[in-house]
């Protein structure tokens, strides 16, 4: 199929990550009383961002490989 699912996963999680990191940095800090004083938005946001970027990286590598593969195939 011509859609690599890693792209949408990567984009969505990176986006969620950025939103939560920014909110964790600049948002109201009092809300973290319920989460044991941990800035859980920032922490989880970093995790999501890293996961999203890894997915995007894998997808880019995958499509680069595919292109290289089809290139050599046409040559041959």
């Amino acid at each position, binding site marked *: *199929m011509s859609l690599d699912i890693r792209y*949408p*996963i990567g984009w969505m*999680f990176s986006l*969620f990550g950025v939103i939560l990191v920014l909110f964790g940095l600049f948002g109201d800090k009092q*809300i973290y009383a*319920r989460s044991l004083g941990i800035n*859980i938005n920032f*922490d989880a946001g970093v995790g999501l961002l890293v996961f999203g970027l890894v997915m995007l990286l894998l997808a880019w590598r995958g499509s680069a490989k595919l292109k290289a593969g089809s290139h050599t195939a046409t040559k041959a």
Partner: protein
Amino acid sequence: MNLTAIDWVIMFLYFAFVLGIGIFLKRFMKTSTDFFLAGRSLPAWVCGIAFMAANLGAVEVIGMGASGAKYGIATSHFYWIGAIPAMVFVGLFMMPFYYGSRARSVPEFLRLRFDEKTRAFNAISFAVMTIFSSGISMYAMAKLIQILHILDLPVAKMGLPVSWSFHLSIFISALIVLGYVFLGGLTSAIYNEVLQFFLIVAGFLPLVLIGLKDVGGWSGLKTRLPETFTHSWLGMTNPHNNPLGVEWFGLVMGLGFTLSFGYWCTNFLVVQRAMAAGSMTDARRTPLIAAVPKMFFPALVILPGMIALALPSQHQAVTVNGVVQMQSVSEDGKGLIPVKIDVATGKPALDRDGKPVLDYDLAIPNLLLHYFPTGILGLGLTALLASFMSGMAGNVTAFNTVWTYDIYQSYIHKGASDKHYLHMGQFATIFGVLFSIAAAYAANRFNNLMDFLQLVFAFVNAPLFATFLLGMFWKRTTGHGAFAGLLSGTAVAALHHGLTLPQGDSIGIKGGWIAVLHNYPSEMAQNFWTAIWAFVVCFVVTVAISLVTKPRDEKELVGLVYSLTKKPSEEHLTWYQRPAFLGVVVLVLALVLNVIFR
């Protein structure tokens, strides 16, 4: 504190991605194979995650959290005993026939192997079952949204009465699922299941981590809960000594063998995900890959239930009009788990001994509201919604395939063009969703009707695995034998249920409606033994009738029966890439988990 804009942004972004995937895939839906079987072209890891996530619906997430709070770590038997061995079996031994026969559905396989009537019986009961399952999933979601008051504020802003949050949840979820399945077919459903899987992990992992930190880790949890709650095999020699109320034999044979193999090996909802794989090796790897996240999922769904029970707090967080408030749970609640409120009277529901009944289904939602501030709360709630939708979409895609190939093409309109069946599939998606909505409202109106239907489905499913086992591994099995076996197995399941009753239950939907010959220590024990009886009777009857009916020509059974089929070639794979090796690794891991949490 409000369910603020940021929570809504996350939720809407998720919906946008889900529909976006459907819209993007629309252009690739050219043949019925694209729509129903994802063109048989997906990579193994995608199919594997979908194989697991299609089953990750409302029942799984909410139900397993509830069971975690009710029974403790013993709930993980539903994974380590009740799923992993069956997933390994379907991958290694059954997938060669499902994928290799080029059958497009499980009922179609039954027609190839047996005959038309066996297929019709399976196709029709399965189609009805999927509609009701997706309806129940939708109903459970709408009910949860109502109880947590998630949509109260938007509904109030639209000037509608609060009760409309129920209708709105059903309408929106149905529309989204319809949208992406209609546009992108099975590919779209599978892709979204993968997305949903990661989202569920992303939403629940922080919850578990923070909860564990609060109770002092696993060792802290151990000191706060009764011993049987943190040991899965403790007291299993006697049903009265463990929270499940089952003894090890009933557990291993009932859950581990008949129920679990019956589900994972014959249910088209999951098997369809493996059929979408690009090659035989990938199809066989699909359930094995699925088994890896599956065996660690208890940490994400069962543990929160246990944490919710262990917390000392007598308070629960409730959102009223979008504002989260801490409300005191009545004295009788345990941890974060409140007493169930009887809808009719508005008073706490009581069991037969006059003790209040706890609403275990709220274990996970209450834990989310307890720890999560706005921001990640949006992510957690979106994860919850995602799980409901993935359960629904799984049923809808299985329904439209079985309807189109096994009912419409077989009995209503044969020999039309492929385009015709593609359109029928899209059309079936629409009325499948409409029927599901009707089922959701029926569940809301007649609670007993749903219990009754689920019981009937349990009877129909109980003997299925015996039929497949004999069909695939004994070439002498005949169509008449299989059909008679299925009918008698179903009848025996009903009979067994009518003659036995779990302790403490009253006669009726719980059993004993013919006469009470035997009392089981728990409903679970009764369930497991119903399945065992159905399996044994189906097995014996199938063998007996097969021996007196005319066997099929062996030439017709090539590719359908083990002894007549060439083993899939794996010469080109190095040893660690072979499905058998992966299967052994998975089984060893599951064994290790059982030993650690024994």
